[in-house]
């Protein structure tokens, strides 16, 4: 064999380099940057999943009415959309209509002048949106986003069957919740299913507990970046309550392996392995799809999160995702922006879309549905969740959406360590306070 030259050695090392580079490239999702992004024509990206057909139907209706200016529509999976949209906005190739979650990301877009001020231009659509939800689309008092789908409050689901069998009252206060937890632990049933692997379902606990204990003002201080805002006693108390739940065995011993994306948390409830589940209203659809008999047999009950004993927060407050929002790209030509605004006023959340959402058990963020809901197939759940949202003095956007990206990630990691017992509440507070300076 011939001696190998230095050049060949270097070429051999080359295999290491491309693998690193493809690693960073694989984040962009599967689809190439095809359609969307031209400033001179209408384009939109939306998410795949149950609501895909509803959006497609709405854009088809627009295309039919405006054959000269059709929408170029592309659908993406949630995670790849979130990565792709940021790059495309950053590089000036955003679609005309930008699907977003309001909160921290929308503020970033506004700060970067990537989206258009819609104040006064979208009054038609806002006039029939639920007011508290439409307000979430505001940044500094100006309207930058309008709701485009259903409202998703976080609900405490429970199995009526297991509660009856073990003679437990559905909990409306913290003390009742702890009693229920003890009863189910004694009966060798996981009291509350928790998708700990996905981490974000753990946020629902700290959000509700903080709100119930200290009211909505606690997180508002954090959002405005006030120094040491995480040191509020309500946060510490909420964290201690979480530790209390974990220690009491409320989530069983293997919640770290339960993932929400496959609906494993809901499955634990409808297969009788767990009694309760704190999750978004969208999980009702999962229950309906995975266990139609369970839902049809009235075995699924729902409640608002229990009140804290002596807490300062209003027990009617709700956390979750108020809705998703459409914003209009500032990179689009002015006449294209006008067309997009026309779409928002005339087609977004119109009667067809509302009916389509109701048909899948989702509650569109639209006013005056009270009379319509009870007669529908899922009337019981829809009325419950709609009343919950309409009657809520405050609807708190999920913290991971409300905060800027980096602190939100820090929050998820630290919170998961609280649930795993790897971190003390005091360490959580100091780690989170550190994110306020940046």
């Amino acid at each position, binding site marked *: *064999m011939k001696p190998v030259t230095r050049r060949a050695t270097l070429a051999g*090392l080359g295999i*290491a380099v*491309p693998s690193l580079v493809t690693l*960073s490239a694989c984040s962009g999702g599967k689809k190439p940057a095809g359609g969307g992004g031209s400033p001179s024509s209408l384009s939109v990206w939306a998410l795949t999943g149950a609501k895909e057909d509803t959006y497609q139907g709405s854009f088809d209706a627009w295309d039919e009415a405006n054959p000269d200016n059709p929408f170029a529509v592309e659908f993406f999976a949630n995670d790849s959309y979130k990565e792709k949209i940021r790059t495309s906005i*950053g590089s000036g190739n955003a679609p005309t209509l930008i699907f977003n979650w309001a909160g921290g990301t929308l503020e970033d877009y506004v700060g970067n002048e990537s989206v258009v001020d819609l104040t006064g231009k979208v009054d038609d659509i806002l006039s029939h949106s639920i007011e508290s939800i439409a307000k979430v689309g505001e940044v500094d008092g100006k309207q930058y986003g309008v709701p485009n789908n259903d409202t998703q409050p976080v609900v405490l689901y429970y199995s009526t069957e297991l509660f009856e069998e073990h003679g437990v009252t559905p909990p409306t206060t913290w003390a009742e919740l702890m009693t229920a937890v003890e009863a189910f632990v004694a009966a060798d049933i996981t009291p509350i299913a928790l998708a700990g692997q996905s981490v974000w379902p753990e946020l629902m606990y700290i959000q509700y507990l903080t709100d119930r204990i200290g009211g909505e003002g606690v997180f508002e201080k954090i959002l405005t970046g006030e120094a040491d805002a995480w040191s509020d006693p309500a946060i510490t108390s909420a964290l201690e309550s979480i530790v209390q739940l974990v220690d009491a065995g409320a989530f069983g011993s*293997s919640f*770290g*392996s339960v993932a929400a994306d496959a609906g494993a948390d809901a499955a634990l409830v409808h297969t009788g392995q767990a009694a309760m589940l704190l999750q978004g209203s969208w999980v009702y659809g999962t229950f309906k799809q995975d266990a139609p008999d369970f839902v049809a047999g009235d075995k699924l009950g729902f409640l608002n999160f229990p009140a804290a004993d002596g807490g300062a927060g209003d027990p009617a407050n709700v956390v979750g995702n108020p809705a998703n929002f459409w914003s209009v790209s500032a990179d689009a030509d002015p006449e294209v922006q006008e067309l997009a605004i026309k779409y928002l006023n005339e087609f977004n959340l119109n009667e067809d879309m509302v009916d389509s959402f109701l048909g899948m058990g989702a509650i569109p963020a639209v006013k005056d549905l009270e009379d319509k809901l009870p007669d529908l197939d899922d009337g019981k759940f829809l009325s419950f969740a709609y009343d919950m949202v309409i009657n809520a003095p405050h609807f708190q956007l999920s913290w991971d959406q409300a905060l800027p990206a980096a602190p939100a990630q820090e929050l998820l990691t630290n919170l998961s*360590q609280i649930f795993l017992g790897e971190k003390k509440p005091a360490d959580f507070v100091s780690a989170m306070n550190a994110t306020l300076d940046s």
Partner: protein
Amino acid sequence: MLAPALAFFGVFALLPLAGVVVLSFFAWDGLGTPSFAGLDAWVAVFQNPVTLNAMKLTFLMTALSFVVQFPLSLLLGTFMAGHQRYREAFSVLYFLPLLFSAAATGIAFKALLDPNFGLSRAFNADFLKQDWLGSPNLAFYTLIMVISWSFVPFHSLLYQAGVRQIPKSMYEAATLDGAGRTRQFFNVTLPQLKYTIVTSSTLMLVGSLTYFDLIFILTGGGPGNATRVLPLDMYLTGFRSYQMGPASVIAVILIVVGLLLSLGLNKVSGADKMESQMEGA
């Protein structure tokens, strides 16, 4: 003749590489224009306990994967090169994991290892009902197992080819000298496989620095930070926290360590002056 390959390598490897190095001196959140930040990102990365922990985990993962994979693939490869009965049937089985994409492997193992709905429930086997991927103490070692399951077949294949190239006459001579099977393995097979071992080890060590897809699907870096190795830390910093500066620093570290490791292996093993020990070559 080299031009197209060089151009390809330049555009798809060197150019992005240079981009990453430049970006590591900037602050950029993915929106707007990157602003020059000097060494800020570098200082931040080396002071960040999460990244330091990720470095520790990466080296631990590299070492452990090697310790598990090297003997297994060497033995399997030697076995597959022989002429025993049913050898081919076994070889096909060992080969199977190589045919699955990392994503499919990840999703399948995630389902099998689920303590509530996985294997333990299917076979009613309580000892399998562990929080494999959800416990901070277990998840890392579970990952090593799944990674080894995926990559051992490839390295076995390398060793099989290596063993097949050893001339039969060397074994005949060893037999005449009275060497038994074990003796033959250590005194003939192993020394003759020297370069196969270098190749396989380089791929194993450098490859384990860049494990991403399997870990991303199985644990996403969790529980807590228990499996957040450097490539994952780079991704999460860049595409979840949108801190492109620090993410680029981590990428540069990975590249440098990968290059040093392969260079070092080549130097130590003397593969840069490869000569055959085989007769007549």
